[in-house]
């Protein structure tokens, strides 16, 4: 079974793109990252309010995903409103836990506790990018990929 993590977007509460990471993106985007981030955020924002409005039950979960015939987009939001969006392939299991671990182990450790990183701006820390890459590559979803 081939499982892949394609890419990851991190948005802050106001919708600013804080980080974009890419691992196995086979089709390059046609616009720059900033534009793409806005598009992704806008779609997620609408989708989230749509889900809340039409839901027949109370939504307690701060995550959802959608799938196309080719890929799956997973969304997880921290209680403070930091949004993690990861695209995986269809056979990958729910990556909600992975996103939470990224938040706890990488985002909180290397962005929140790093006074050099201003909050609410794009993350330029190399250490953050390196730790994120290590975590993603060590996850089961990534390692079971047969390329």
């Amino acid at each position, binding site marked *: 079974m081939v499982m892949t993590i394609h890419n990851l977007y991190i948005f802050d509460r106001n919708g600013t793109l804080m980080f974009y990471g890419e691992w196995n993106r086979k089709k390059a985007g046609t616009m720059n990252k900033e534009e793409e981030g806005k598009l992704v955020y806008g779609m997620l924002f609408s989708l989230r309010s749509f889900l809340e409005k039409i839901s027949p039950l109370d939504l307690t979960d701060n995550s959802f995903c959608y799938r196309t015939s080719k890929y799956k987009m997973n969304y997880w939001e921290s209680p403070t409103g930091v949004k993690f969006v990861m695209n995986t392939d269809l056979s990958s299991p729910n990556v909600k836990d992975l996103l939470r671990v990224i938040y706890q182990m990488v985002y909180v450790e290397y962005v929140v*506790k*790093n006074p050099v990183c201003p909050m609410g701006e794009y993350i330029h820390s190399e250490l953050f990018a390196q730790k994120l890459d290590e975590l993603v590559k060590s996850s089961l979803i990534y390692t079971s990929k047969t390329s």
Partner: protein
Amino acid sequence: MALPPQATSITTPPDELPLELLHGELIFSGVLLSKDKEGDINELLSKLEFIGFSTGYRLIERLLKDSTRFKDELDTIKFICKDFWVAIYKKQIDNLRTNHQGTYVLQDNCFKLLSKISATKQYLEHGPKFLAFTCGIIRGALSNLGISSVVVAEISTMPTCRFHITIQRAT
């Protein structure tokens, strides 16, 4: 979900976090800089160093309450490397060197206040700001033990740093 083995050990226990965050804010908030001299790095560093000095001066008093007298200067420095460092940074100094003439070099291979910032040359220019407080702590601690000294720090690659202690002899 498989986690890398070191993943659990890197997280700071919540009780130490306020100090870490406060330290970061002291450096970057600009509270320590007076308005008209904004951006004067030396003023910031000396204020941080002084805060560290008072902290170290008081802290050593508290930490020594159960300790015996030190044999000599080296014994004192060893205490700084072991118990004192553990009390502040939850680890010991990794390497201690001395020329036996009043100069000591304390090396920390993963200095806590730098470990979250960078593991490369990135942000190296901010390094001195993160070390001034700790230089002051060491100087203050030694000062309360009757040893006057000059403490400077250097970083080659984060998060490794070295503190040079030069003991001032009364002439």
